[in-house]
C-alpha cells in the first residue's frame, strides 16, 4: 500500500530551474560543433511530376558536401511503413523517393553543406524541375467528378472507408420515427501544431561499428528508431534515438517525417554528424498538420427530450498521403461521437480522402475535439428547436455513475465517472451574461468524455494497429542509495518527469529529491511505441511505476530484515524528509538495531543478504503494464463570450473547466495542461486555420502573421476545477489529462456565441469563427450593426 506524501502535491517541475537559466538542451542547443547542415529541397507546387534533378552546379560549390535526389533516395531507402489502416486501404506507406509530388513543401531531396546558410545557398543551385499537374485543394474538390486522381491506390481519391456503431439501415429507421431531427454540416479546419521549437535532429553515423545515433525533437523515440531502421535498412540495435528537451509537440512530433528520414540518410552516406532544424516556414508548410474534416451529422430526439439516435458521416482530409496513423483521428471522431450521453442507436461513418495539401497526423484531442464540436452543437440546436434548457436536455440523457461500466453503440466501455456532476458544477459557476448595445453576450456549457491511457494491447490488435499499447518502467536503487526511474514515455514540456518522481518517491517511501527520472533515450529507456501521446504517459507509466516500486520496496525490506536478523514484518524504514540518500539518519530499524539505506543498497549490489536460492541481485525492477481497459476521463466546460455585431469579433470573456482525471499526481502540472489546452482550443475556435489557395493548393499560411497563435489577450483567466473518480483500470487510479483542455473549447465557445446571437445559431457549424464569417452570418440573418456603421 502506497502512502501518499508527494502524490497530490503541486511540485514545480524539476527541470524548470535549468530551463529558466537558459540551460535547456533542445536539439539546436546540443553541442555538435562539427555537424554539417542540411537544407531540404521541397516541391514548389502542390501537384506535379519531377522531370529533372540536376545538381551539377551545386556540387561544384566548395561548401557543398552532399546532394541527394530522388534517384539516390530510391536506391538507398525503403518507404516508411504505416501503422493504422482503414479496412480497405491500399495506400500503406509513406514514399521517400518522389517522382510525383503531391503537396507544396514535400521533400524531394536535400543538400548538405558546411553550415546552415551555406546549405541554403547551395540548395538554390540545384536545378529541380517539376511539371505541374492539376491540384485539388479540398475534399470537395477531390471527390468531385473528373477530379485529378492523386494515387493509383485511391480510386476517386478515397483512401478508405469504415463505419462504427449501429448499422446505417437501423440508424435510418431510428431517424425516420423521431419527433425531431437536427441535421447540420460541420466544418473543422486544418490547424498547425506550431510548437515554439520546430522539428529538428542531429544524426551521427559511426561507420566502424555501423551505429546511427539520432538526437531528435520527438515525442516517440522508439517509434522513430523502428521507422528509421526500416527506412535505412539497418538493424534495430544499430539505431539509437535520443530526445532531450522537447519544445512542445502536441502530436506533431509523434512520427518520423520523410524529411527527417532523409537527414539520417545523409548522415549514413557522409559519415559523421549531420544537422537539420526546420525553420518556421517549413514547420507551417511541410510538417504534418491536424484536423480537417467536413461532417454531415444528425441527432434524433423524442418529444420528451430523450435522445434516440446520432449519426456522423465524417469526410476527412488526409492530405497528400496517409501518414503512419493515417485516418486514426477520423476513426476516433466516429468512435467517440456519443460522448457522455445514452443513445439507443448511434454510429459514425468515415471516408478518408486525399488532397494536394500537407498530410494530416495526430493533433492534441485526436478526433475527440471534432466529435465534441459536432455532438454538442447538435444537442444545443435540439434544445433551441425544442425550446428547452440546453443543460436540462443534456442532464436528461447523461450516462450516470450507476450505468458504469457503460458500453457505447460504437463499442467503447466507459469505466467510471459522474458526468452529470461535472456538468452541474460547470453550469452552476457560469454566470448569465448581460447584453447591451452593439455587443451581445452569451454563455454556454458543454460536456465531453475523453479516451485516455490508450490502450490495452489486445484492443490495439483488434483495431489491427501495428503498435504496442503497454508501457514499461525500470526502477533502480543505485549502490549509493539514489533512485533512478527509466521509462519509455517522454518529457515534452508536460511535466511527466516530475509526476513520475513523485510516484516513485511515494512508492518506495523516500524523499522526492532522491529520485532522478531518465526518459527519451532508446539505449536506456524501456521500449515504448506510443510514448507520450494519447493522454497515456501518466496513466500507463505511472501504473507500471507503482507496481515496480511496491516490488522493490518489498525486496529492500526483505534484505534489511536479513541484514538485521529480524522478521520482515518487524522492519521499519525511517527516513527524515530532508536528508540525503547517504545520510546515516535514513535507516531501516529492527529490534536488533539499524542499517542505513545507503549501506543496505551498497550491500545489495554486492549480492549480500539475499535468501538462499535467490539469483536476483540487481536492486531494480522492470515492470510492463498492459492496461485491462482504456480509462475515460471526462469534463464540462463553460464559456462566456461577447459578440460585437458591428465587427463580428468574438471575445472569450470568461472560461470555466471541470475535469475528472481520477487521482491527480501533480495539481500544478494538471492545471497547466488544462489551461494550455483551452488556449489551443480558443485558437481553433476563433482564428487558427491553415489556408491554401483554392485553385493551386499552395500554402497561404506561411508565418505567424497568417497563422496567428493565441496571444495573452485572446485567453481569459481560466477557472480550473477537478473532480476525482479514481480509475479502476490502473493501479494509481489515474486518468489522462493531456488533451482534455483542448477538446471542448470550440464547441463551448460556438454554443456561447449561439446563446448570444440565437439568430445565427443554425449556421454556427464551422470553425474558426473569424470576424469575417461571424459578420457575414450576422448580416445574412438581418442583424445590422450600429447605425453609424451601416449608413456608410
Amino acid at each position, binding site marked *: 500500500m502506497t502512502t501518499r506524501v508527494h502524490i497530490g502535491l*503541486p511540485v*514545480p*517541475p524539476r*527541470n*524548470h*530551474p535549468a*530551463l*529558466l*537559466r*537558459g*540551460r*535547456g538542451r*533542445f536539439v*539546436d*542547443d546540443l553541442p555538435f560543433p562539427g555537424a554539417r547542415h542540411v537544407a531540404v529541397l521541397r516541391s514548389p507546387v502542390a501537384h506535379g511530376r519531377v522531370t529533372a534533378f540536376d545538381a551539377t552546379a551545386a556540387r561544384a560549390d566548395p561548401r557543398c558536401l552532399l546532394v541527394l535526389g530522388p534517384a539516390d533516395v530510391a536506391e538507398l531507402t525503403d518507404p516508411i511503413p504505416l501503422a493504422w489502416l482503414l479496412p480497405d486501404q491500399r495506400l500503406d506507406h509513406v514514399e521517400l523517393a518522389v517522382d510525383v509530388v503531391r503537396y507544396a513543401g514535400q521533400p524531394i531531396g536535400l543538400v548538405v553543406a558546411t553550415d546552415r*546558410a551555406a546549405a541554403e545557398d547551395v540548395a538554390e543551385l540545384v536545378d529541380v524541375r517539376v511539371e505541374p499537374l492539376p491540384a485539388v485543394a479540398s475534399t470537395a474538390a477531390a471527390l468531385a467528378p473528373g477530379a485529378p486522381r492523386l494515387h493509383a491506390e485511391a480510386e476517386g481519391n478515397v483512401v478508405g472507408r469504415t463505419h462504427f456503431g449501429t448499422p446505417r439501415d437501423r440508424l435510418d429507421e431510428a431517424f425516420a420515427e423521431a419527433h425531431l431531427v437536427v441535421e447540420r454540416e460541420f466544418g473543422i479546419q486544418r490547424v498547425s501544431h*506550431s*510548437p*515554439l*521549437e520546430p522539428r529538428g535532429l542531429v544524426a551521427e553515423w559511426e561507420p566502424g561499428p555501423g551505429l546511427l545515433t539520432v538526437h531528435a525533437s520527438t515525442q516517440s523515440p522508439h517509434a522513430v528508431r523502428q521507422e528509421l531502421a526500416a527506412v535505412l535498412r539497418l538493424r534495430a540495435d544499430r539505431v539509437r534515438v535520443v530526445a532531450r*528537451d*522537447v*519544445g*512542445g509537440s*502536441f502530436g506533431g512530433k509523434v512520427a518520423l517525417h520523410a524529411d527527417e528520414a532523409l537527414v539520417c540518410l545523409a548522415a549514413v552516406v557522409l559519415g559523421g554528424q549531420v544537422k537539420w532544424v526546420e*525553420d*518556421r516556414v517549413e514547420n507551417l508548410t511541410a510538417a504534418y498538420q491536424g484536423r480537417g474534416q467536413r461532417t454531415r451529422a444528425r441527432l434524433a430526439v423524442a418529444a420528451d427530450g430523450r435522445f434516440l439516435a446520432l449519426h456522423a458521416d465524417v469526410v476527412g482530409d488526409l492530405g497528400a498521403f496517409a501518414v503512419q496513423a493515417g485516418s486514426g483521428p477520423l476513426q476516433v471522431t466516429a468512435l467517440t461521437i456519443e460522448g457522455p450521453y445514452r443513445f439507443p442507436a448511434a454510429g459514425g461513418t468515415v471516408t478518408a480522402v486525399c488532397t494536394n495539401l500537407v498530410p494530416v497526423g495526430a493533433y492534441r484531442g485526436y478526433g475527440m475535439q471534432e466529435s465534441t464540436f459536432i455532438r454538442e452543437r447538435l444537442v444545443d440546436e435540439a434544445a433551441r428547436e425544442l425550446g428547452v434548457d440546453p443543460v436540462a436536455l443534456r442532464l436528461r440523457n447523461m450516462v450516470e455513475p450507476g450505468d458504469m461500466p457503460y458500453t457505447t453503440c460504437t463499442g467503447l466501455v466507459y469505466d467510471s465517472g459522474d458526468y452529470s456532476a461535472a456538468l452541474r458544477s460547470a453550469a452552476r459557476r457560469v454566470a448569465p451574461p448581460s447584453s447591451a448595445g452593439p455587443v451581445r453576450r452569451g454563455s454556454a456549457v458543454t460536456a465531453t468524455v475523453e479516451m485516455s491511457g490508450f490502450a490495452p494491447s489486445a484492443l490495439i490488435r483488434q483495431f489491427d494497429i501495428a503498435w504496442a499499447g503497454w508501457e514499461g518502467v525500470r526502477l533502480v536503487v543505485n549502490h549509493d542509495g539514489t533512485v533512478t526511474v527509466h521509462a519509455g514515455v517522454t518529457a*515534452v*514540456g*508536460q*511535466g511527466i518527469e516530475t509526476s513520475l518522481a513523485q510516484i516513485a518517491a511515494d512508492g518506495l517511501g523516500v524523499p522526492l529529491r532522491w529520485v532522478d527520472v531518465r526518459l527519451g533515450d532508446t539505449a536506456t529507456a524501456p521500449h515504448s511505441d506510443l510514448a507520450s501521446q494519447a493522454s497515456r504517459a501518466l496513466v500507463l507509466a505511472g501504473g507500471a511505476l507503482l507496481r515496480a516500486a511496491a516490488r522493490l520496496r518489498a525486496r529492500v525490506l526483505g534484505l534489511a530484515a536479513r541484514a538485521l536478523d529480524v522478521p520482515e514484518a518487524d522492519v521499519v524504514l525511517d527516513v527524515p524528509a530532508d536528508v540525503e540518500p547517504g545520510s546515516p539518519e535514513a535507516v531501516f530499524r529492527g529490534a536488533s538495531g539499524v542499517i542505513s539505506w545507503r549501506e543496505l543498497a551498497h550491500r545489495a549490489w554486492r549480492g549480500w543478504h539475499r535468501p538462499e536460492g535467490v539469483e536476483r541481485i540487481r536492486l531494480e525492477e522492470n515492470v510492463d503494464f498492459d492496461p485491462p481497459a482504456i480509462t475515460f476521463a471526462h469534463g464540462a466546460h463553460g464559456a462566456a463570450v461577447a459578440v460585437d455585431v458591428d465587427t463580428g469579433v468574438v471575445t472569450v470573456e470568461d472560461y470555466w473547466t471541470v475535469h475528472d482525471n481520477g487521482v491527480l499526481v501533480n495539481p*500544478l*502540472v494538471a*492545471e*497547466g495542461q488544462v*489551461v*494550455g*489546452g*483551452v*488556449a*489551443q482550443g480558443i485558437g481553433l475556435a476563433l482564428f487558427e486555420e491553415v489556408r491554401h489557395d483554392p485553385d493551386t493548393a499552395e500554402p497561404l499560411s506561411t*508565418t*505567424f*502573421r497568417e497563422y496567428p*497563435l*493565441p*496571444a*495573452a*489577450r485572446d*485567453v481569459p*483567466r*481560466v477557472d480550473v476545477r477537478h473532480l476525482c473518480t479514481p480509475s479502476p483500470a490502473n493501479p494509481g487510479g489515474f486518468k489522462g489529462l493531456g488533451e482534455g*483542455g483542448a477538446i471542448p473549447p470550440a464547441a463551448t465557445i460556438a454554443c456561447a456565441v449561439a446563446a448570444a446571437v440565437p439568430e445565427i445559431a443554425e449556421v454556427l457549424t464551422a470553425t474558426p469563427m473569424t470576424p469575417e464569417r461571424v459578420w457575414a452570418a450576422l448580416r445574412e440573418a438581418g442583424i445590422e450593426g450600429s447605425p453609424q456603421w451601416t449608413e456608410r
Partner: protein
Amino acid sequence: MNGTARTARAEPRTSLGEHLRTALGLTGTHLGCEQGDCGACAVLLDGEPVCSCLVLAVQADGCRVETVESLARGDDLGPAQRALLEEHGLQCGFCTPGLLMRMTHARRTGAPASDVLGGHLCRCTGYGGLRAAVERHCAVEARKEDQP
C-alpha cells in the same frame, strides 16, 4: 556581453540571435520563428528588448547585450526567474528566455505587464501561470524589492 567584453567574427548576414548561439556559445536564447513574431529570441540591446532574429550581429558591435544567461546570481535565480518558477509560468521552456528578458526590462523601466505579454507567444501554458508571474513581477510593490 552579459558584463564581459567578447570578440567574435560574424558574417554580415548573420543575425544577432544566431551569432549568440553559434559564435559565442550562448544557446539560452532560442529562435522560434526568425521573423520577429514570437518573441522567444528577445535579448536586451543597450538595455532595450529586441528580437535578436531581426538584428544583425554586426549591428550589435560595441553594444551592451544581455541574455538569459545573465539573470541568475550563482545558485540564486533572479526575480523574473523566481516568478515564473513559482507561478508555473512555463512548460516546455523553449520560449521562456525571451520572456525573461522582456520581464527584466519591464521591471527596470516600470513598463506594465501588458507590455511584456503583448510581445510574447507561448504555445504551452495558455498564459495562466505565465500571466500571473508577469503581473506579479511587474507590480509596483514588487519593484520596491529591487531598491538597495
